[in-house]
């Protein structure tokens, strides 16, 4: 369980990224932090593995304040997947995946063997093992990123817009893959995105953030869609007047009659 207790973060230039925010992300669930840029979602995520220190307040993992833990050890125990994969360009796929276990002292041979298994878990052909990141497609790089995040078998996985830089078809594919992996592994995942559709697709719980790092609403996708708390949330969900949809035959159309989907 990850708990944010009254955390704030202000930067030297006076900008307030997060203000007095409290939030709990339950174990073995996917909690999605969603909001437009400048809502502090990445800042919150980075507080968990101490890449960012809160100006005030605490972040606790299973009731232990992360500030009391050794930062390097803490990071090795938490998976981290970022946009543009953040792979090390001078390491092959397999060595990128094996990074954290090797840092934790696992013999290289064993770490590589486990990395091979992980390549299969995330749907990568093992013939890619010896390739360098720039020899892979964007989607493949993200899969490597996910495999690397899982390599040390962490309880917690932090994902910072991991599928933000790939095309919609690959993104949908990666999302399905993540849902499958999560069903199998049951990690505590904190997932950051600005894409509400992605949040609804992946989240067991969704936290909508507004500018200045405040929570606009939180709940299951169902709760939020059924009862948006205010206009801001409704607009963010695309439930405002302009986007109100209705059914025309077996098509779903917007107020101007443009089709946006089809009934199953």
């Amino acid at each position: 369980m990850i708990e944010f207790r009254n955390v704030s973060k202000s930067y030297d230039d006076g900008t307030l990224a997060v203000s007095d925010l409290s939030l709990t992300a339950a174990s073995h669930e996917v909690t999605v932090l969603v909001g437009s840029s400048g809502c502090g979602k990445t800042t919150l995520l980075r507080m968990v593995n101490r890449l960012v220190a809160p100006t005030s307040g605490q972040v606790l993992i299973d009731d232990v304040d992360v500030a009391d833990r050794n930062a390097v050890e803490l990071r090795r125990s938490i998976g981290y997947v970022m946009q543009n994969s953040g792979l090390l360009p001078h390491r092959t796929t397999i060595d990128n995946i094996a990074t954290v276990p090797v840092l934790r002292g696992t013999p290289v041979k064993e770490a590589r063997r486990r990395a091979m298994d992980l390549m299969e878990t995330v749907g990568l052909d093992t013939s890619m093992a010896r390739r360098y990141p720039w020899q892979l497609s964007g989607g493949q790089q993200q899969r490597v990123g996910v495999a690397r995040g899982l390599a040390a078998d962490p309880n917690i996985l932090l994902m910072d817009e991991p599928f933000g830089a790939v095309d919609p078809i690959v993104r949908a594919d990666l999302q399905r893959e993540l849902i499958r992996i999560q069903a199998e592994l049951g990690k505590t995942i904190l997932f950051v995105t600005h894409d509400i559709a992605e949040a609804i697709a992946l989240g067991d719980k969704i936290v909508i953030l507004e500018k200045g790092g405040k929570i606009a609403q939180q709940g299951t996708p169902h709760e939020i869609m059924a009862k948006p708390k205010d206009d801001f949330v409704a607009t963010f969900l695309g439930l405002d007047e302009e986007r109100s949809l209705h059914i025309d035959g077996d098509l779903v159309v917007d107020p101007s009659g443009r089709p946006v989907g089809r009934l199953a």
Partner: protein
Amino acid sequence: MKWVLDNVGTITDATWAHLWLALPAIVISFVVAIPVAWVASRFRRSRFTLLLIAGLIYAIPSLPLFIILPLILGTSVRSLVNVIAALGLYGVALMVRYAADALDAVSPDTVLAATAMGYGPLRRFFGVQLPLAGPALLAGLRVVAVSTVSLVPVSALLGINSLGMLLTDGFQRDIFAEVLAGIVATVVVAVAVDLGLVGLGQLLMPWWRLTMKRSAKRSPVEDKQVVTA
């Protein structure tokens, strides 16, 4: 040509002596410049001052430095340590700027990713930042190496053996072939050291070799596309 054939032994000795002065100086340049560049790159405010000092050192004329340095080091003017120290000082002065730029150019995202993976500062520097700065460091070191090799002959004015001796001796005794041999041999040594560094770079950075191959392969294709477009 006859002079060269008659004096192969002298030339070979001078070449080894030349390398024996240049190579330690090049190694010193690299090893000393890295931590200085790390400070310049890590602490923004120190950067201007450090690079200014490096620039000033590089501006000291070499002959006076060869004479002043023994007073500071307590060595004799004609000691090899003196010459290597002076060459190393120039090398460091030149290398610091290259190295600082090389470290600055490493993608902050990659460094952040490494930190997030749980790299400690030291391991991150040697395992991620330094190798990724490698190609740019090598480019700088190649300039330093060639510059050092071509600076060594100045020490011949102090009477220290190197290919520079062929120049001073050739001038004094009016043997044109000897002067020419000195020049050619110095250039050959410079090219050899340069090739050696490139080879070392490819050995230590296999990923860099592949990147080079990729860009070499890619460019003709791009040219073709421009033509057909």
